[in-house]
């Protein structure tokens, strides 16, 4: 029974991601951009989930790792000839090297992990409110430094001229990698130990689990996934420091919270549902033709709707749309597995 559940736990998000990707092959190229963005969002939210969902500790800082990943992949994959125009003050070794698509993504994941590890070393001692504020501080510092330090990137400029290699296939593969890594992690010894600390930290400590150590593992891993997602992002569309800041933090946290922060299924569902709503509204802000008339929403509607949705979910159903459960299964079956899980 447990084995069957494990298969479903992986299969359901995978099927959803593949379905979204297949849907993307059927639609017009402008709609396809939304589908690709949805898949990149899945990667980011799954990265968030690996830490927040498993540890129960809040982080406002993950978009920093996305940003660092985007910076890494963007700077490395931009053709040497284009660099001086956009990044005139770039450090020499970055100016003269260019790495391919996959290579730059791998390095982005590595840099994301390294940055998360460095940040996590001191920060993983904190939890609750203190963790929330401290990780927010990380976001502020990262944003501030990326904005002004022109030796490592474009500063206030936008990453134009980066090869746009994140198509439907690459985004889907990225999302699937994130889902697979998250699944393997939460099924691993480490993942189970971290979830134990989430449920009852003192009890976990009492049986010898290092809360700090387990959180650091998850933080680093989610940093890697976030870095990868950042790389996918910068290969999808021209971004700048403002794109990878508060709005993205808000919307990805909203996705996680709305879907249900404590399950992989919830993370993926949240990312897909909110992205779908968000894409539709974004389109509607430009005017969209529906059977029965044209819908033309004023700009800003998106965040009003998503914000309302998020506040509502938090107030009415704090465990999220999926109630923080893994794949919806018959209740008795689920209960059996859950008791085993929490035991």
């Amino acid at each position, binding site marked *: 029974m447990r084995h069957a559940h494990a298969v479903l736990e992986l299969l359901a998000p995978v099927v959803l991601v593949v379905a979204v990707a297949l849907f993307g092959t059927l639609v017009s190229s402008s709609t396809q951009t939304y589908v690709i963005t949805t898949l990149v969002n899945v990667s980011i939210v799954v990265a968030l989930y690996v830490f927040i969902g498993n540890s129960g500790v809040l982080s406002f800082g993950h978009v920093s790792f996305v940003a660092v990943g985007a910076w890494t992949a963007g700077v490395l994959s931009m053709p040497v000839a284009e660099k001086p125009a956009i990044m005139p003050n770039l450090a020499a070794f970055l100016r003269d090297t260019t790495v391919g698509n996959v290579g730059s993504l791998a390095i982005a994941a590595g840099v994301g992990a390294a940055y998360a590890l460095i940040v996590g070393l001191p920060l993983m*001692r904190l939890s609750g409110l203190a963790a929330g504020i401290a990780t927010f501080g*990380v976001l*502020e510092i990262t944003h501030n430094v990326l904005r002004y330090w022109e030796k490592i990137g474009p500063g206030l400029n936008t990453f134009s001229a980066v090869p746009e290699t994140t198509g439907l296939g690459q985004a889907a593969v990225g999302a699937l990698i994130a889902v697979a890594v998250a699944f393997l992690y939460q099924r691993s010894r480490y993942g189970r130990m971290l979830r134990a600390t989430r449920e009852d930290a003192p009890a976990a400590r009492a049986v010898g689990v290092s809360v700090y150590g387990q959180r650091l593992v998850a933080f680093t891993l989610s940093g890697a996934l976030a870095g990868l997602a950042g790389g996918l992002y910068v290969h999808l569309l021209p971004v700048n420091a403002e794109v990878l800041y508060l709005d993205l933090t808000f919307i990805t946290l909203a996705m996680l919270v709305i879907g249900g922060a404590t399950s992989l299924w919830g993370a993926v569902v949240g990312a897909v549902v909110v992205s779908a709503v968000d894409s539709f509204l974004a389109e509607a802000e430009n005017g969209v033709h529906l059977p029965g008339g044209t819908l033309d929403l004023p700009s800003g509607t998106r965040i009003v709707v998503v914000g309302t949705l998020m506040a509502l979910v938090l107030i009415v159903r704090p465990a999220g749309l999926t109630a923080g459960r893994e794949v919806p299964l018959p209740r008795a079956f689920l209960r059996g597995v859950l008791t085993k899980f929490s035991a």
Partner: protein
Amino acid sequence: MTFVATVLGADWQTLADAFGLGGIYALMAVGIGLVFGVLRLVNFAYGQLVMAGAYALAFAYERGWPVWVGIILCFAVVVTLAVAMDWVVFRPLRGHSPAVMLVATFAVAFLMQSIALLWFGPLGKIAASLSALNQPWTISGVDIRKISIVATAVAAGCLLALVLLLGRTRVGLHMRAAALDFQTARLLGVRANRVIGSAVLVSGLLAATVAVMLTVQSPLVTPDFALRDTILVLAGVVLGGMNRLISATLGGFAIGFASGFLGGALPTNQSQYLPSFLFAAVILVLLIRPRGLFARAGQQAVERV
């Protein structure tokens, strides 16, 4: 070296500005700290109350209404919103974990910001009815902008009134008791809703006051008005120590003073990294003294279990 030289060479105007900004931030810190005291809730959306007040002032200015009408409108709007926020968001969330409440107010902040965007557009409105306060006063040969002095004085006055309210009145005593031990306070007959309502009301009044003074300094009101200030104040409040109003206030003042002073005294190529240094300091304090810089030893940790 240039750093030291510039800082030491700072003129009186910079110093006065720093005091003014410190005072404004201290008021915001009190507004956030009061609500935290009784609800254990960090209100991320506090800056959006200030933003709403600023739009009210702009609204009045555009129509050429007298200053006092604008100020009354500002107070009415902000207090109404603060109370509504309490009813619609804080109350249903009572008893949730601090992290959930923080995320929820984060959502509310974005919500209010995008409502402002929808309603007023991204370009911003002007609220300049008090711009005369940007003129200098000459005090023994030194020119100082009036608003710096007014802001300092208003902040001092508000803080004094608050000390009297908390120290000398019944509701003030109840608020202090509720912040220390809400359950025991209720067992003694302290009415939870009234205490929370009072804290929300006072924090709304402070937000409106801040809105009036911030629009003098930056009359262009955009949807993200006061957002950066709120983030800094939150950092300052944590820096000082959330658990005591006085330490939260000091933290707010300190971060306002520091950012006003260093921002004014340093050349741009050095002051652009100021937020990084401020937040690095916040993280350092959280790690070394989780209860805050100004909190007394023996205080409870940031959260009550």
